[in-house]
Protein backbone atom coordinates (compact mmCIF):
# COMPACT_ATOMS: atom_id res chain seq x y z
CA UNK A 1 0.00 0.00 0.00
CA UNK A 2 2.68 2.44 1.06
CA UNK A 3 4.99 1.40 -1.76
CA UNK A 4 2.13 1.62 -4.17
CA UNK A 5 1.36 5.20 -3.14
CA UNK A 6 5.06 6.00 -3.39
CA UNK A 7 5.11 4.77 -6.99
CA UNK A 8 1.94 6.70 -7.87
CA UNK A 9 3.32 9.84 -6.26
CA UNK A 10 6.62 9.61 -8.11
CA UNK A 11 4.86 9.00 -11.44
CA UNK A 12 2.68 12.12 -10.98
CA UNK A 13 5.69 14.06 -9.68
CA UNK A 14 7.64 13.12 -12.83
CA UNK A 15 5.00 14.64 -15.08
CA UNK A 16 4.97 17.77 -12.91
CA UNK A 17 8.74 17.91 -13.32
CA UNK A 18 8.48 17.76 -17.12
CA UNK A 19 6.00 20.65 -17.17
CA UNK A 20 7.75 22.75 -14.52
CA UNK A 21 11.26 22.40 -15.94
CA UNK A 22 10.36 24.32 -19.08
CA UNK A 23 8.74 26.98 -16.94
CA UNK A 24 11.75 27.35 -14.67
CA UNK A 25 14.14 27.47 -17.65
CA UNK A 26 12.11 30.25 -19.23
CA UNK A 27 12.09 32.12 -15.95
CA UNK A 28 15.80 31.57 -15.46
CA UNK A 29 16.68 33.20 -18.76
CA UNK A 30 13.91 35.77 -19.42
CA UNK A 31 12.44 36.37 -15.93
CA UNK A 32 8.94 35.83 -17.34
CA UNK A 33 6.17 33.86 -15.64
CA UNK A 34 5.16 31.79 -18.64
CA UNK A 35 1.57 30.83 -17.72
CA UNK A 36 0.84 29.88 -21.34
CA UNK A 37 3.37 27.07 -20.94
CA UNK A 38 0.45 24.87 -19.88
CA UNK A 39 -1.28 25.80 -23.13
CA UNK A 40 1.80 24.47 -24.94
CA UNK A 41 1.47 21.32 -22.81
CA UNK A 42 -2.15 20.83 -23.93
CA UNK A 43 -1.16 21.62 -27.52
CA UNK A 44 1.47 18.86 -27.32
CA UNK A 45 -1.22 16.44 -26.16
CA UNK A 46 -3.54 17.39 -29.04
CA UNK A 47 -0.81 17.25 -31.69
CA UNK A 48 0.32 13.90 -30.28
CA UNK A 49 -3.21 12.54 -30.29
CA UNK A 50 -4.03 13.61 -33.83
CA UNK A 51 -0.74 12.33 -35.16
CA UNK A 52 -1.35 9.06 -33.29
CA UNK A 53 -4.68 8.73 -35.08
CA UNK A 54 -2.90 9.27 -38.39
CA UNK A 55 0.22 7.14 -37.86
CA UNK A 56 -0.94 4.67 -35.23
CA UNK A 57 2.47 4.47 -33.55
CA UNK A 58 2.77 5.84 -30.03
CA UNK A 59 6.50 6.62 -30.05
CA UNK A 60 6.22 8.56 -33.28
CA UNK A 61 3.24 10.49 -31.95
CA UNK A 62 5.27 11.37 -28.86
CA UNK A 63 8.01 12.81 -31.06
CA UNK A 64 5.50 14.71 -33.23
CA UNK A 65 3.76 16.08 -30.12
CA UNK A 66 7.08 17.29 -28.72
CA UNK A 67 8.00 18.87 -32.06
CA UNK A 68 4.62 20.61 -32.35
CA UNK A 69 4.95 22.02 -28.83
CA UNK A 70 8.53 23.13 -29.48
CA UNK A 71 7.57 25.04 -32.63
CA UNK A 72 4.63 26.71 -30.86
CA UNK A 73 6.90 27.68 -27.97
CA UNK A 74 9.40 29.20 -30.37
CA UNK A 75 6.76 31.43 -31.96
CA UNK A 76 5.40 32.51 -28.57
CA UNK A 77 8.88 33.64 -27.61
CA UNK A 78 9.64 35.44 -30.89
CA UNK A 79 6.27 37.13 -31.43
CA UNK A 80 5.08 37.86 -27.90
CA UNK A 81 7.76 37.76 -25.21
CA UNK A 82 10.93 39.16 -26.74
CA UNK A 83 9.25 42.41 -27.92
CA UNK A 84 7.99 43.00 -24.36
CA UNK A 85 11.19 42.42 -22.42
CA UNK A 86 11.84 46.13 -21.80
CA UNK A 87 8.46 46.61 -20.10
CA UNK A 88 7.53 46.05 -16.43
CA UNK A 89 7.20 42.40 -15.46
CA UNK A 90 3.42 42.53 -15.38
CA UNK A 91 3.15 43.08 -19.17
CA UNK A 92 4.49 39.69 -20.34
CA UNK A 93 2.58 38.04 -17.46
CA UNK A 94 -0.72 39.45 -18.70
CA UNK A 95 0.12 38.55 -22.30
CA UNK A 96 0.82 35.05 -21.13
CA UNK A 97 -2.51 34.80 -19.28
CA UNK A 98 -4.35 36.18 -22.32
CA UNK A 99 -2.60 33.72 -24.61
CA UNK A 100 -3.39 30.82 -22.29
CA UNK A 101 -7.10 31.73 -22.21
CA UNK A 102 -7.16 32.10 -26.00
CA UNK A 103 -5.36 28.78 -26.52
CA UNK A 104 -7.84 26.87 -24.33
CA UNK A 105 -10.71 28.38 -26.27
CA UNK A 106 -9.03 27.60 -29.58
CA UNK A 107 -8.70 23.93 -28.55
CA UNK A 108 -12.37 23.84 -27.61
CA UNK A 109 -13.48 25.40 -30.88
CA UNK A 110 -11.17 23.35 -33.12
CA UNK A 111 -11.26 19.95 -31.44
CA UNK A 112 -14.62 20.17 -29.66
CA UNK A 113 -15.41 20.47 -25.93
CA UNK A 114 -15.44 16.70 -25.30
CA UNK A 115 -12.63 14.61 -23.90
CA UNK A 116 -10.90 12.59 -26.60
CA UNK A 117 -9.48 9.14 -25.85
CA UNK A 118 -5.73 8.63 -26.35
CA UNK A 119 -5.81 4.89 -26.40
CA UNK A 120 -2.24 4.08 -27.35
CA UNK A 121 -0.58 0.68 -27.02
CA UNK A 122 2.93 1.30 -25.89
CA UNK A 123 4.11 -2.29 -25.84
CA UNK A 124 5.82 -2.29 -22.44
CA UNK A 125 3.50 -4.43 -20.31
CA UNK A 126 2.70 -4.09 -16.61
CA UNK A 127 5.09 -4.92 -13.79
CA UNK A 128 4.10 -6.74 -10.60
CA UNK A 129 6.34 -7.65 -7.68
CA UNK A 130 4.18 -9.15 -4.90
CA UNK A 131 1.53 -6.60 -4.00
CA UNK A 132 3.53 -3.85 -5.68
CA UNK A 133 2.13 -2.99 -9.07
CA UNK A 134 3.27 -0.60 -11.78
CA UNK A 135 1.00 -0.06 -14.77
CA UNK A 136 2.35 0.17 -18.25
CA UNK A 137 1.73 3.92 -18.45
CA UNK A 138 3.45 4.52 -15.12
CA UNK A 139 6.54 2.70 -16.38
CA UNK A 140 6.32 4.76 -19.56
CA UNK A 141 6.18 8.03 -17.61
CA UNK A 142 9.13 7.06 -15.43
CA UNK A 143 11.24 5.94 -18.41
CA UNK A 144 10.51 8.97 -20.59
CA UNK A 145 11.05 11.42 -17.72
CA UNK A 146 14.33 9.75 -16.78
CA UNK A 147 15.52 9.84 -20.39
CA UNK A 148 14.61 13.51 -20.76
CA UNK A 149 16.23 14.45 -17.44
CA UNK A 150 19.45 12.69 -18.41
CA UNK A 151 19.39 14.43 -21.78
CA UNK A 152 18.82 17.80 -20.12
CA UNK A 153 21.59 17.25 -17.62
CA UNK A 154 24.03 16.15 -20.32
CA UNK A 155 23.02 19.07 -22.52
CA UNK A 156 23.43 21.68 -19.81
CA UNK A 157 26.71 20.39 -18.39
CA UNK A 158 28.52 18.73 -21.31
CA UNK A 159 27.83 20.89 -24.37
CA UNK A 160 29.01 24.38 -25.24
CA UNK A 161 25.43 25.48 -25.97
CA UNK A 162 24.39 24.25 -22.54
CA UNK A 163 27.23 26.18 -20.96
CA UNK A 164 26.17 29.31 -22.86
CA UNK A 165 22.61 28.78 -21.67
CA UNK A 166 23.65 28.59 -18.03
CA UNK A 167 25.81 31.66 -18.52
CA UNK A 168 22.82 33.52 -20.03
CA UNK A 169 20.71 32.66 -17.02
CA UNK A 170 23.38 34.23 -14.81
CA UNK A 171 24.06 37.37 -16.80
CA UNK A 172 22.87 37.82 -20.41
CA UNK A 173 24.82 41.02 -21.05
CA UNK A 174 28.21 39.68 -20.01
CA UNK A 175 27.53 36.46 -21.91
CA UNK A 176 26.70 38.48 -24.98
CA UNK A 177 29.98 40.38 -24.70
CA UNK A 178 31.83 37.03 -24.87
CA UNK A 179 30.40 36.51 -28.36
CA UNK A 180 27.45 34.31 -27.46
CA UNK A 181 24.33 34.81 -29.57
CA UNK A 182 21.92 35.38 -26.70
CA UNK A 183 18.88 35.57 -28.95
CA UNK A 184 19.62 32.10 -30.36
CA UNK A 185 20.21 30.73 -26.85
CA UNK A 186 16.81 32.03 -25.74
CA UNK A 187 15.22 30.33 -28.76
CA UNK A 188 16.92 27.00 -27.94
CA UNK A 189 15.78 27.40 -24.35
CA UNK A 190 12.16 27.77 -25.46
CA UNK A 191 12.42 24.89 -27.94
CA UNK A 192 13.70 22.49 -25.26
CA UNK A 193 11.34 23.68 -22.53
CA UNK A 194 8.29 23.51 -24.81
CA UNK A 195 9.27 20.08 -26.13
CA UNK A 196 9.35 18.82 -22.53
CA UNK A 197 5.90 20.30 -21.91
CA UNK A 198 4.66 18.62 -25.08
CA UNK A 199 6.05 15.30 -23.86
CA UNK A 200 4.26 15.81 -20.53
CA UNK A 201 1.00 16.49 -22.41
CA UNK A 202 1.30 13.28 -24.45
CA UNK A 203 2.21 11.25 -21.34
CA UNK A 204 -0.75 12.55 -19.33
CA UNK A 205 -3.01 12.03 -22.33
CA UNK A 206 -2.04 8.36 -22.40
CA UNK A 207 -1.95 7.97 -18.59
CA UNK A 208 -5.51 9.28 -18.12
CA UNK A 209 -6.50 8.07 -21.60
CA UNK A 210 -8.04 11.45 -22.32
CA UNK A 211 -7.20 14.80 -23.88
CA UNK A 212 -9.48 17.77 -23.26
CA UNK A 213 -9.41 21.54 -23.91
CA UNK A 214 -8.87 22.69 -20.33
CA UNK A 215 -6.37 19.97 -19.39
CA UNK A 216 -3.79 22.72 -18.92
CA UNK A 217 -5.77 24.78 -16.39
CA UNK A 218 -4.67 23.02 -13.25
CA UNK A 219 -1.09 22.30 -14.37
CA UNK A 220 -0.74 25.98 -15.34
CA UNK A 221 -1.06 27.17 -11.78
CA UNK A 222 0.28 24.11 -10.06
CA UNK A 223 3.46 24.25 -12.12
CA UNK A 224 3.91 27.89 -11.05
CA UNK A 225 3.59 26.85 -7.41
CA UNK A 226 6.13 24.05 -7.95
CA UNK A 227 8.57 26.34 -9.72
CA UNK A 228 8.36 28.86 -6.89
CA UNK A 229 8.67 26.08 -4.32
CA UNK A 230 11.87 24.92 -6.01
CA UNK A 231 13.29 28.45 -6.22
CA UNK A 232 12.41 30.24 -9.47
CA UNK A 233 14.91 29.38 -12.20
CA UNK A 234 16.55 26.59 -10.18
CA UNK A 235 16.55 23.33 -12.16
CA UNK A 236 17.46 20.74 -9.48
CA UNK A 237 15.12 22.54 -7.05
CA UNK A 238 12.27 22.23 -9.53
CA UNK A 239 12.75 18.47 -9.91
CA UNK A 240 12.85 18.09 -6.13
CA UNK A 241 9.75 20.26 -5.64
CA UNK A 242 7.84 18.32 -8.33
CA UNK A 243 8.48 15.01 -6.63
CA UNK A 244 7.67 16.50 -3.20
CA UNK A 245 4.32 17.87 -4.48
CA UNK A 246 3.49 14.60 -6.30
CA UNK A 247 4.17 12.61 -3.14
CA UNK A 248 2.41 15.10 -0.83
CA UNK A 249 -0.74 14.98 -2.97
CA UNK A 250 -0.79 11.19 -3.12
CA UNK A 251 -0.12 10.76 0.60
CA UNK A 252 -2.40 13.46 1.98
CA UNK A 253 -5.33 12.51 -0.21
CA UNK A 254 -4.70 8.80 -0.77
CA UNK A 255 -3.33 7.60 2.57
CA UNK A 256 -4.59 10.07 5.17
CA UNK A 257 -7.84 10.74 3.28
CA UNK A 258 -7.96 14.41 4.36
CA UNK A 259 -10.96 16.09 2.71
CA UNK A 260 -8.85 18.76 1.11
CA UNK A 261 -8.76 19.66 -2.57
CA UNK A 262 -5.83 17.89 -4.14
CA UNK A 263 -4.94 20.86 -6.28
CA UNK A 264 -4.58 23.24 -3.34
CA UNK A 265 -1.87 21.08 -1.71
CA UNK A 266 0.83 22.57 -3.95
CA UNK A 267 -0.18 26.09 -2.94
CA UNK A 268 -0.33 25.35 0.77
CA UNK A 269 3.13 23.77 0.55
CA UNK A 270 4.39 26.76 -1.41
CA UNK A 271 3.01 29.40 0.98
CA UNK A 272 4.39 27.51 4.01
CA UNK A 273 7.86 27.17 2.46
CA UNK A 274 7.97 30.79 1.28
CA UNK A 275 7.26 32.06 4.77
CA UNK A 276 10.53 30.51 5.97
CA UNK A 277 12.56 30.49 2.79
CA UNK A 278 11.39 33.42 0.62
CA UNK A 279 13.41 32.18 -2.36
CA UNK A 280 12.16 28.57 -2.39
CA UNK A 281 13.57 25.22 -1.26
CA UNK A 282 16.92 25.43 -3.07
CA UNK A 283 16.77 29.08 -4.14
CA UNK A 284 19.34 31.72 -3.36
CA UNK A 285 18.71 35.40 -2.79
Amino acid at each position, binding site marked *: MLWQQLANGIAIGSVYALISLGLTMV*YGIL*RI*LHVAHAGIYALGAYVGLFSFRLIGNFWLSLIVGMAGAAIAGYFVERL*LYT*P*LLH*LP*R*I*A*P*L*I*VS*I*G*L*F*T*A*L*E*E*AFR*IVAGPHTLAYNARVGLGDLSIGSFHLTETQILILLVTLAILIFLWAFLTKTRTGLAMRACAQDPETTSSFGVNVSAIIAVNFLIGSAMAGAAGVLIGVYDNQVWPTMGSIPA*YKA*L*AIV*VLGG*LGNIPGTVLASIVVGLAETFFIGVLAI*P*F*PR*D*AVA*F*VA*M*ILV*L*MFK*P*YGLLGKA
Partner: protein
Amino acid sequence: MISGYLVTILITIVIYAMLAHSLNIITGHAGQISLGHAAFFGIGAYTSAMLYTEAGFPFWTSVPLAAVVAGIVGALLGVPCLRVRDDFLAITTMGINFVVEAIFLYIPFFGGAMGIGGINLPKWFGREMTKPEYFFLILVVFVFFLLLDRQLGRSWIGLAWASIREDEQAAGAMGVDVVRFKVLAFILGSAIAGLAGGFYAHFLTFIMPQNFGFGQSIVILSMVVFGGIGTRWGPIAGAIILGVLPEISRPIMEYRTLIYGVLLLGMMRFQPGGLLGPESILSKTFQRTIYRLVSPE
Protein backbone atom coordinates in the same frame (compact mmCIF):
# COMPACT_ATOMS: atom_id res chain seq x y z
CA MET B 1 -37.65 54.07 -16.15
CA ILE B 2 -34.59 51.88 -16.66
CA SER B 3 -35.36 48.31 -17.60
CA GLY B 4 -34.52 45.45 -15.25
CA TYR B 5 -31.95 44.02 -17.61
CA LEU B 6 -30.14 47.32 -18.03
CA VAL B 7 -30.05 48.01 -14.30
CA THR B 8 -28.59 44.55 -13.68
CA ILE B 9 -25.75 45.30 -16.09
CA LEU B 10 -25.24 48.74 -14.54
CA ILE B 11 -24.96 47.30 -11.04
CA THR B 12 -22.55 44.61 -12.22
CA ILE B 13 -20.39 47.24 -13.90
CA VAL B 14 -20.23 49.47 -10.83
CA ILE B 15 -19.25 46.46 -8.71
CA TYR B 16 -16.52 45.54 -11.20
CA ALA B 17 -15.39 49.16 -11.38
CA MET B 18 -15.09 49.16 -7.59
CA LEU B 19 -13.05 45.95 -7.71
CA ALA B 20 -10.81 47.24 -10.50
CA HIS B 21 -10.34 50.48 -8.61
CA SER B 22 -9.38 48.66 -5.42
CA LEU B 23 -6.89 46.42 -7.21
CA ASN B 24 -5.46 49.52 -8.85
CA ILE B 25 -4.56 50.83 -5.38
CA ILE B 26 -2.45 47.74 -4.66
CA THR B 27 -1.03 47.09 -8.13
CA GLY B 28 -1.23 50.45 -9.87
CA HIS B 29 -0.39 52.87 -7.06
CA ALA B 30 1.79 50.80 -4.74
CA GLY B 31 3.15 48.55 -7.50
CA GLN B 32 2.49 45.23 -5.76
CA ILE B 33 1.32 42.60 -8.25
CA SER B 34 -1.70 40.70 -6.96
CA LEU B 35 -3.21 37.75 -8.78
CA GLY B 36 -5.61 36.89 -5.95
CA HIS B 37 -7.85 39.90 -5.61
CA ALA B 38 -11.04 37.83 -5.94
CA ALA B 39 -10.17 36.22 -2.59
CA PHE B 40 -10.94 39.50 -0.80
CA PHE B 41 -14.02 40.03 -2.91
CA GLY B 42 -15.10 36.56 -1.73
CA ILE B 43 -14.20 37.19 1.90
CA GLY B 44 -16.37 40.31 1.83
CA ALA B 45 -19.26 38.54 0.16
CA TYR B 46 -19.13 35.58 2.56
CA THR B 47 -18.76 37.79 5.66
CA SER B 48 -21.73 39.86 4.66
CA ALA B 49 -23.82 36.82 3.70
CA MET B 50 -23.02 34.92 6.91
CA LEU B 51 -23.73 37.95 9.12
CA TYR B 52 -27.01 38.59 7.30
CA THR B 53 -28.38 35.06 7.10
CA GLU B 54 -26.91 33.43 10.25
CA ALA B 55 -26.45 36.27 12.74
CA GLY B 56 -29.38 38.41 11.60
CA PHE B 57 -27.40 41.60 11.01
CA PRO B 58 -29.12 44.08 8.69
CA PHE B 59 -27.54 45.08 5.39
CA TRP B 60 -26.42 48.43 6.76
CA THR B 61 -24.05 46.80 9.25
CA SER B 62 -23.21 43.52 7.51
CA VAL B 63 -21.74 45.21 4.43
CA PRO B 64 -19.46 47.68 6.29
CA LEU B 65 -18.36 44.79 8.51
CA ALA B 66 -17.55 42.83 5.35
CA ALA B 67 -15.17 45.64 4.39
CA VAL B 68 -13.61 45.59 7.87
CA VAL B 69 -13.09 41.82 7.86
CA ALA B 70 -11.66 41.85 4.31
CA GLY B 71 -9.35 44.70 5.34
CA ILE B 72 -8.12 42.79 8.39
CA VAL B 73 -7.52 39.62 6.37
CA GLY B 74 -5.80 41.76 3.75
CA ALA B 75 -3.46 43.10 6.44
CA LEU B 76 -2.80 39.63 7.84
CA LEU B 77 -2.02 38.23 4.40
CA GLY B 78 -0.21 41.40 3.35
CA VAL B 79 2.38 40.96 6.09
CA PRO B 80 3.72 37.58 4.88
CA CYS B 81 3.46 38.88 1.32
CA LEU B 82 6.02 41.53 2.29
CA ARG B 83 8.63 38.84 2.64
CA VAL B 84 8.34 37.99 -1.03
CA ARG B 85 8.71 40.24 -4.05
CA ASP B 86 7.65 40.66 -7.67
CA ASP B 87 7.06 37.27 -9.22
CA PHE B 88 7.07 35.43 -5.90
CA LEU B 89 4.40 37.85 -4.70
CA ALA B 90 2.31 37.27 -7.84
CA ILE B 91 2.29 33.53 -7.29
CA THR B 92 1.80 33.77 -3.52
CA THR B 93 -1.31 35.91 -3.99
CA MET B 94 -2.53 33.44 -6.60
CA GLY B 95 -2.00 30.63 -4.08
CA ILE B 96 -3.94 32.58 -1.46
CA ASN B 97 -6.84 32.80 -3.92
CA PHE B 98 -6.85 29.02 -4.46
CA VAL B 99 -6.67 28.33 -0.73
CA VAL B 100 -9.48 30.79 0.13
CA GLU B 101 -11.70 29.29 -2.57
CA ALA B 102 -10.91 25.80 -1.27
CA ILE B 103 -11.87 26.87 2.28
CA PHE B 104 -15.26 28.17 1.09
CA LEU B 105 -15.77 25.01 -0.93
CA TYR B 106 -14.70 22.38 1.60
CA ILE B 107 -15.75 23.72 4.99
CA PRO B 108 -19.44 22.94 5.59
CA PHE B 109 -19.77 26.06 7.78
CA PHE B 110 -19.56 28.15 4.59
CA GLY B 111 -22.23 26.17 2.78
CA GLY B 112 -19.78 24.16 0.66
CA ALA B 113 -20.40 23.85 -3.07
CA MET B 114 -24.07 24.77 -2.53
CA GLY B 115 -23.10 28.28 -1.48
CA ILE B 116 -25.27 30.59 0.63
CA GLY B 117 -28.72 31.70 -0.43
CA GLY B 118 -31.47 33.88 0.99
CA ILE B 119 -29.52 37.15 1.03
CA ASN B 120 -31.82 40.05 0.13
CA LEU B 121 -31.57 43.59 -1.13
CA PRO B 122 -31.41 46.11 1.73
CA LYS B 123 -34.50 47.66 3.34
CA TRP B 124 -35.14 51.37 3.80
CA PHE B 125 -38.23 53.43 4.67
CA GLY B 126 -39.88 50.17 5.74
CA ARG B 127 -39.66 48.50 2.35
CA GLU B 128 -37.13 46.67 0.24
CA MET B 129 -34.93 48.81 -1.99
CA THR B 130 -35.64 48.61 -5.71
CA LYS B 131 -32.82 47.73 -8.06
CA PRO B 132 -32.44 51.24 -9.54
CA GLU B 133 -32.22 52.63 -5.99
CA TYR B 134 -29.60 50.02 -5.15
CA PHE B 135 -27.65 51.06 -8.24
CA PHE B 136 -27.59 54.68 -7.09
CA LEU B 137 -26.55 53.62 -3.58
CA ILE B 138 -23.45 51.78 -4.78
CA LEU B 139 -22.73 54.46 -7.37
CA VAL B 140 -22.64 57.08 -4.61
CA VAL B 141 -20.31 54.90 -2.55
CA PHE B 142 -18.08 54.40 -5.57
CA VAL B 143 -17.91 58.12 -6.32
CA PHE B 144 -16.86 58.63 -2.71
CA PHE B 145 -13.97 56.20 -3.24
CA LEU B 146 -12.95 58.04 -6.39
CA LEU B 147 -12.82 61.32 -4.47
CA LEU B 148 -10.84 59.59 -1.74
CA ASP B 149 -8.46 58.30 -4.40
CA ARG B 150 -7.89 61.82 -5.68
CA GLN B 151 -7.21 63.03 -2.13
CA LEU B 152 -4.78 60.14 -1.53
CA GLY B 153 -2.99 60.81 -4.81
CA ARG B 154 -2.22 64.34 -3.65
CA SER B 155 -1.15 63.33 -0.15
CA TRP B 156 2.06 61.91 1.26
CA ILE B 157 0.56 58.45 1.03
CA GLY B 158 0.23 58.74 -2.74
CA LEU B 159 3.79 60.01 -3.06
CA ALA B 160 5.10 57.23 -0.83
CA TRP B 161 3.29 54.61 -2.92
CA ALA B 162 4.67 56.08 -6.13
CA SER B 163 8.19 56.00 -4.73
CA ILE B 164 7.81 52.36 -3.66
CA ARG B 165 6.38 51.44 -7.04
CA GLU B 166 9.22 53.07 -8.96
CA ASP B 167 12.10 51.88 -6.79
CA GLU B 168 11.52 50.16 -3.49
CA GLN B 169 15.14 50.26 -2.32
CA ALA B 170 15.58 53.91 -3.17
CA ALA B 171 12.32 54.72 -1.38
CA GLY B 172 13.53 52.87 1.71
CA ALA B 173 16.86 54.70 1.58
CA MET B 174 15.04 58.04 1.39
CA GLY B 175 13.27 57.24 4.64
CA VAL B 176 9.92 55.99 3.31
CA ASP B 177 8.51 53.36 5.65
CA VAL B 178 8.11 50.74 2.91
CA VAL B 179 6.43 48.09 5.08
CA ARG B 180 3.86 50.47 6.50
CA PHE B 181 2.79 51.90 3.14
CA LYS B 182 2.67 48.49 1.47
CA VAL B 183 0.44 47.11 4.23
CA LEU B 184 -1.70 50.24 4.01
CA ALA B 185 -2.23 49.62 0.28
CA PHE B 186 -3.16 46.00 0.97
CA ILE B 187 -5.61 47.00 3.72
CA LEU B 188 -7.29 49.70 1.67
CA GLY B 189 -7.48 47.63 -1.51
CA SER B 190 -8.79 44.55 0.30
CA ALA B 191 -11.35 46.53 2.31
CA ILE B 192 -12.84 48.13 -0.82
CA ALA B 193 -12.90 44.72 -2.52
CA GLY B 194 -14.65 43.33 0.58
CA LEU B 195 -17.23 46.09 0.42
CA ALA B 196 -17.81 45.31 -3.24
CA GLY B 197 -18.26 41.68 -2.18
CA GLY B 198 -20.94 42.67 0.31
CA PHE B 199 -22.78 44.67 -2.33
CA TYR B 200 -22.44 41.78 -4.75
CA ALA B 201 -23.85 39.20 -2.29
CA HIS B 202 -26.91 41.34 -1.52
CA PHE B 203 -27.46 41.98 -5.20
CA LEU B 204 -27.12 38.37 -6.40
CA THR B 205 -28.96 37.05 -3.28
CA PHE B 206 -26.99 33.84 -3.71
CA ILE B 207 -23.23 33.25 -3.67
CA MET B 208 -21.02 30.28 -4.49
CA PRO B 209 -17.27 29.68 -4.01
CA GLN B 210 -16.79 29.56 -7.79
CA ASN B 211 -17.74 33.25 -8.05
CA PHE B 212 -14.50 34.13 -6.27
CA GLY B 213 -11.96 31.87 -7.95
CA PHE B 214 -8.73 32.66 -9.73
CA GLY B 215 -10.61 33.27 -12.99
CA GLN B 216 -12.41 36.18 -11.33
CA SER B 217 -9.08 37.63 -10.17
CA ILE B 218 -7.89 37.54 -13.76
CA VAL B 219 -11.04 39.30 -14.94
CA ILE B 220 -10.45 42.09 -12.41
CA LEU B 221 -6.77 42.36 -13.29
CA SER B 222 -7.65 42.42 -16.99
CA MET B 223 -9.94 45.39 -16.43
CA VAL B 224 -7.20 47.32 -14.64
CA VAL B 225 -4.56 46.50 -17.22
CA PHE B 226 -6.86 46.98 -20.18
CA GLY B 227 -7.92 50.45 -19.09
CA GLY B 228 -4.50 51.58 -17.97
CA ILE B 229 -2.74 50.48 -14.82
CA GLY B 230 -2.06 53.22 -12.29
CA THR B 231 -4.42 55.73 -13.92
CA ARG B 232 -7.60 56.84 -12.12
CA TRP B 233 -10.08 56.43 -14.98
CA GLY B 234 -8.42 53.53 -16.78
CA PRO B 235 -9.67 50.73 -14.49
CA ILE B 236 -13.19 52.19 -14.70
CA ALA B 237 -13.02 52.33 -18.49
CA GLY B 238 -11.74 48.75 -18.44
CA ALA B 239 -14.60 47.64 -16.18
CA ILE B 240 -17.16 49.28 -18.44
CA ILE B 241 -15.75 47.92 -21.70
CA LEU B 242 -14.99 44.41 -20.50
CA GLY B 243 -18.22 44.35 -18.48
CA VAL B 244 -20.41 45.39 -21.43
CA LEU B 245 -18.56 43.20 -23.92
CA PRO B 246 -20.09 39.89 -22.74
CA GLU B 247 -23.56 41.45 -23.02
CA ILE B 248 -23.27 42.82 -26.55
CA SER B 249 -21.36 39.80 -27.78
CA ARG B 250 -24.17 37.34 -27.01
CA PRO B 251 -24.58 36.47 -30.70
CA ILE B 252 -20.94 35.41 -30.77
CA MET B 253 -21.21 33.74 -27.34
CA GLU B 254 -19.24 30.78 -28.64
CA TYR B 255 -16.12 32.88 -29.19
CA ARG B 256 -16.49 35.22 -26.22
CA THR B 257 -13.66 33.92 -24.08
CA LEU B 258 -11.43 33.62 -27.14
CA ILE B 259 -12.02 37.28 -27.96
CA TYR B 260 -11.37 38.19 -24.35
CA GLY B 261 -8.05 36.39 -24.38
CA VAL B 262 -6.97 37.80 -27.73
CA LEU B 263 -8.02 41.31 -26.68
CA LEU B 264 -5.95 41.10 -23.52
CA LEU B 265 -2.98 39.72 -25.42
CA GLY B 266 -3.21 42.26 -28.23
CA MET B 267 -3.65 45.15 -25.81
CA MET B 268 -0.54 44.29 -23.85
CA ARG B 269 1.48 43.49 -26.92
CA PHE B 270 0.73 46.73 -28.77
CA GLN B 271 -0.50 49.18 -26.09
CA PRO B 272 1.13 48.00 -22.87
CA GLY B 273 0.13 51.17 -21.01
CA GLY B 274 -3.54 50.35 -21.47
CA LEU B 275 -6.32 52.31 -23.09
CA LEU B 276 -5.85 55.45 -20.98
CA GLY B 277 -2.19 54.96 -20.09
CA PRO B 278 0.29 57.80 -20.61
CA GLU B 279 1.74 56.29 -23.83
CA SER B 280 -1.48 55.12 -25.47
CA ILE B 281 -2.78 56.30 -28.84
CA LEU B 282 -5.94 57.57 -27.17
CA SER B 283 -4.13 59.77 -24.63
CA LYS B 284 -1.74 61.12 -27.26
CA THR B 285 -4.57 62.03 -29.63
CA PHE B 286 -6.40 63.67 -26.76
CA GLN B 287 -3.33 65.68 -25.74
CA ARG B 288 -2.73 66.72 -29.33
CA THR B 289 -6.32 67.90 -29.72
CA ILE B 290 -6.15 69.89 -26.48
CA TYR B 291 -2.84 71.38 -27.57
CA ARG B 292 -4.32 72.45 -30.91
CA LEU B 293 -7.31 74.03 -29.23
CA VAL B 294 -5.19 75.91 -26.72
CA SER B 295 -2.48 77.19 -29.06
CA PRO B 296 -4.15 79.30 -31.76
CA GLU B 297 -1.75 78.69 -34.70
